[in-house]
């Protein structure tokens, strides 16, 4: 059984084309994505996270646009302060603040290596949104979390970085966390 030379050559050409198209999708697009910077400067003014929730980013923070997704009933914003990641997540939630804190703790400890550290305490934003805050530890990193309730929403805040990075930025991050406000109607 033989394959004619012409057919074989056409098949080789077609196969190379197929491989090129597969590579363009699976490798080329991610490469193009990596080639463009993901972070953008963001003004220290109220930034809409989503669902009517705003936050004033820490001065000098950069916004990671690939992990930031505002929405009508939910939203996520990721700010970078050097090596510190400051994440605000807004999502629909019908339970009380204790339940919201429980859900966030479950998320944190669901990540391999994460452990809660210290006691949880009561906190509030400047606009009076009640919440809870605490700390956690991950291999080589420390983290802090806070959770607030507003209308039918849960607002989750997590901050993570190495110990020196976190110490250097904690005051700015706490000020930013206190600036969280709910300015719109819940869905």
């Amino acid at each position, binding site marked *: *059984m033989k*394959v004619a030379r012409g057919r074989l050559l056409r098949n080789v050409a077609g196969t190379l084309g*197929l491989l090129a198209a597969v590579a363009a999708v699976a*490798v080329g697009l991610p490469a*193009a994505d990596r080639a*463009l910077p993901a972070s953008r400067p963001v003004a220290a003014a109220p930034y809409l996270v989503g669902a009517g929730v705003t936050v004033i980013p820490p001065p000098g923070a950069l916004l990671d*646009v690939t992990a930031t997704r505002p929405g009508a009933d939910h939203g996520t914003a990721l700010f970078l302060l050097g090596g510190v990641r400051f994440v605000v997540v807004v999502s629909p939630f019908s339970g009380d603040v204790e339940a919201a804190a429980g859900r966030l703790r479950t998320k944190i400890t669901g990540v391999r290596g994460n452990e809660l550290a210290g006691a949880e305490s009561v906190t509030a934003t400047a606009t009076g949104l009640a919440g809870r805050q605490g700390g956690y530890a991950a291999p080589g990193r420390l983290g802090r979390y806070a959770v607030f309730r507003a209308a039918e929403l849960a607002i989750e805040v997590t901050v993570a970085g190495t110990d020196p990075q976190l110490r250097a930025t904690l005051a700015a991050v706490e000020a930013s966390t206190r600036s969280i406000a709910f300015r719109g109607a819940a869905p």
Partner: protein
Amino acid sequence: MTDAAHPATHARAVDGRGARTAHVHPAPRAHSRTSLLLPAFWVVLALTVVGAVRLSGFVRTSFAELPVATAVAVGLFVCYAVPLWLFVAALDHLEREPALLRATAVAWGGLVATTISVPGVAALHNLIAKLVSPAFAATWGSALAGPTVEEVAKALGVIAIVLVARAQLNSVLDGVVYGALVGLGFQVVEDIAYALNAVALAGHGDSVRPVIATFLLRGLLAGLWSHTLFAALAGAGIGYLVVRTDRSMASRVGAAMLAFGGAWTCHFLRNAPLPSGGLGGGPWLFAGLVLKGVPPMVVVALLVRAARQREADYNTAEQAAPNDTRIATAAGLHAFGSGHLRVKGRRYPFARAGMRGRRAVRRLQRAQAGLAVDSSRGGSGFRWFGRAPRERSRLVAIGHPEAHAAKRRHRSGPLLAAALAGAAFAVLLAVWLAILAVCAPSL
């Protein structure tokens, strides 16, 4: 024979229509060993193995973390795929595609297309956010990135089939079948992944409620106009590109691009945030889902109908070629050329002679199809030449010599169509209400 008209007359009549639009290139008998000598075969095999390894890793992790939800998701969506697989495979009932190629198409969709789409869609989503804005990406990212990457990944599956077994894609209908099978594989794997993501997001442990919700929403409600349909449309274009060698390359490429554009647009409309709102969007969201899905479904249904008709015309002409009324009469050829007349042709003897009559007509139709396909491949048709007259003798013996539909005209068609459309709408509505009543609280 009761019919005096010569079969060749009918054959010439259909030949005109077939020659104008059809172009069915006879497929040779499947020689899978020839494909082993082609580099495309080994590349497709390697990509499939890579995809299988990646998917098995995902399934293994899911089984370890969410054993019940994973088992239910895999079981539900695999069961869901079986009738769709049978339906798609039966579209080209006269000349079914080789099982190995059908399996290859599904494997490409489920293993390769999903594997390359995951990083591709994520990267394009990020690029949209970087080049436009995060808000734009949040609203339109899925509508733009999903079709752009996934439709390409699925269309590559049909091209892979062409490279591995070019001769088996011998009509536009074959392109539809292979495209639909690629889309089916993709849809099943994607739905399983969505179901397991929903379980993880719900945060209630190893719960099956999000799986059921995903199955109802993505499988039953929106699944009928999903990847299977889009890829079938793109496959039709590739089929045209490959088969219509009588047309200029520009028009063939144009037709293929048009079909791909249609698939992209259907996918875009499905992902577009119109109407907006979540499950709580109520009846408007339900109406939006139906409005988004029905037009592409109708377009593909018409396309399939036309392609089947062309292929039936071609095979009818092949069958008529022997000019032997023991094999086919003019009335029998007329019925043979149409799917619903073939069904009526079996129903009619059932009314007159019971199961015996129905079975005999079915066997005769099978012999006629076998003869047509065998003749088109340049075979002698020896096996079928003997069988068709034997089945005809059986029909003569039970007093029903013709394999045609009843001549009596009745007006039940529009009524039946309206009843079917109403029933389909009622089923969709019931699924929608089930989603709202049972699963919405967990979403």
